[in-house]
């Protein structure tokens, strides 16, 4: 709980740092643009001052081409721009030393404009004794002053940029630190916690399996005893038993048989967990024929038909465990058929690149689509014992064995009935 809070705080701080950083960058980008605009304006002022002089000189040569009104318009443009520029630097509480200096220098330019205005009035009225040379000197001086001001503006902008870069670096370092903190103290710990929980889960799984093994082991003997002595008793009583009593004996024997089967399957299931794979080269045809021999009486009783594809000459598997897989799948295939239907099972094979794929298709009752996910679960049974008997462990065993080989077990159901179990085994099993 506490760790969760630390994690949240750390995330919030990181997000805040990133947001502030972004706002800061945006603000300074805007400032930089403003600065560039002002520097540009400064440059333009120099150009306008020179244009005014140029027009005055042209008028000197040929008065007809340039009128006093033209000159006044240029002057007006120049002066208004000057005022706008000055306003931009007019002091406020945030302005720094340089900005104040720029403002002072801009104000100091006023006399140049006044001189120029006087010259223009003289040009219009013809009164006065200011010479073109004096105006030229005035404009050249303005140009020099403006150059200095633009230099200061550029230096100021440059300094701001340096400040921004410095602050950016600091922010980046803070972000890096936060990320380090997150990883070192939050994620690492959460991870360690998970690893610990995982380990204890593995432990408790192991204990559970040990427990299942012991319970099954201890239950097997009593179940076996019940079976043994019921058989003995039944044989000894023989003809003395009435029909009803024979039925009772059947109940006892069925129950004990089921009890023993469950404990056997459980033992088998847990022993798969505990044992190492013993991989060897196995001829699948030989293996499946052995399984069919085990099931021979069942196959004959039900008049089952089994067809087989051609299999590769050898596959690398644990012979004993794979025997269990085929035994379970084939006995399911012949067990889950509608009454009075002779089972038909087809064992197919496909070479699928890195995998061997075996398919066991039956003509049985199929599996409801909703149950497809459930059937590999331990103790999962979809039918009552009177319908189809079994312990619900067989498919769990199959899945466990196949997964232990690094493969996977799945089932396909066809709408026409019947189901296909697919056993995918890697050609190179995981050791």
């Amino acid at each position, binding site marked *: 709980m506490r760790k969760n809070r630390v994690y949240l705080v750390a995330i919030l701080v990181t997000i805040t740092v990133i947001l502030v950083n972004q706002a800061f960058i945006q603000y300074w980008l805007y400032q930089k643009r403003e600065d560039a605009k002002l520097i540009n304006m400064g440059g333009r002022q120099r150009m306008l001052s020179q244009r005014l002089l140029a027009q005055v000189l042209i008028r000197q040569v040929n008065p007809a081409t340039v009128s006093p009104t033209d000159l006044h318009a240029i002057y007006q443009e120049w002066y208004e721009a000057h005022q706008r520029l000055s306003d931009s630097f007019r002091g406020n509480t945030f302005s720094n030393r340089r900005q104040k200096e720029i403002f002072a220098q801009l104000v100091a330019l006023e006399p140049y404009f006044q001189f120029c205005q006087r010259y223009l009035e003289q040009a219009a009225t013809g009164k006065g004794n200011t010479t073109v040379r004096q105006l030229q000197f005035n404009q050249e001086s303005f140009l020099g002053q403006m150059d200095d001001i633009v230099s200061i503006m550029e230096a100021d902008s440059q300094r701001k940029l340096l400040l921004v870069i410095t602050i950016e670096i600091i922010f980046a370092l803070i972000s890096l630190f936060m990320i380090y903190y997150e990883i070192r103290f939050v994620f690492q710990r959460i991870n360690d916690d998970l690893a610990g929980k995982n380990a204890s889960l593995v432990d408790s799984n192991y204990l559970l399996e040990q427990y299942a093994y012991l319970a099954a*082991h201890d239950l*097997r*003997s009593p179940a076996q005893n019940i079976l*043994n002595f019921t058989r*003995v008793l039944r044989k000894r009583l023989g003809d003395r038993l009435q029909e009803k009593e024979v039925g009772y004996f059947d109940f006892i024997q069925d129950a004990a048989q089921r009890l023993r089967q469950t404990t*056997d399957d459980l033992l088998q299931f847990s*022993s798969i967990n505990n*044992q190492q794979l013993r991989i060897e080269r196995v001829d699948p045809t030989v293996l499946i024929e052995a399984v069919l021999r085990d099931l021979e009486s069942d196959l004959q009783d039900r008049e089952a038909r089994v067809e087989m594809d051609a299999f590769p000459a050898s596959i690398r598997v644990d012979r004993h465990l794979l025997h269990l897989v085929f035994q379970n799948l084939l006995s399911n295939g012949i067990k889950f058929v509608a009454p009075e239907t002779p089972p038909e099972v087809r064992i197919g094979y496909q070479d699928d690149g890195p995998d061997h794929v075996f398919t066991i298709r039956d003509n049985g009752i199929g599996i409801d689509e909703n149950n497809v996910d459930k059937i590999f679960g331990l103790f999962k049974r979809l039918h009552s014992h009177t319908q189809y008997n079994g312990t619900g462990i067989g498919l769990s065993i199959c899945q466990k064995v196949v997964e232990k080989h690094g493969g996977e077990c799945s089932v396909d159901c066809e709408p026409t009935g019947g189901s296909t179990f697919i056993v995918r085994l890697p050609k190179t099993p995981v050791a």
Partner: protein
Amino acid sequence: MKKFRFLVFIDDDHPTNVYHKLILEESDLCEESKFFVSPVEALEFFKTLADEPDPVFPDAIFLDINMPMLSGWEFIEEYQKLGIPESPVIIMLTTSRYVKDLERGERLAIVHKLISKPLEIEHLETVCQEIL
């Protein structure tokens, strides 16, 4: 068919012993038999037997693996410590098909074979043919 002269059964589960005795009687394959619920008592029996002037050792010992106090495997160790010159044929009885048991059985030369309980007449017939 040949018959066992003397067989010893060691299993901590009394009903199992009784059933095995029934099977043995039914099979009519054995003249004399002895059943032990306690492996310790069985060890003492063999110790006294070895001291007799003309001891008659069993043709085979049917030994349960999973017993409290002394497991089948421990029994074999203790038996070998007795220093009895004749080594008996031992048939291990197991409730499980636990692979580790099977592997261990394969490795011990003294163990003739492992049989999954319950013991049936066919088992006895096979063993009889194999060792007599």
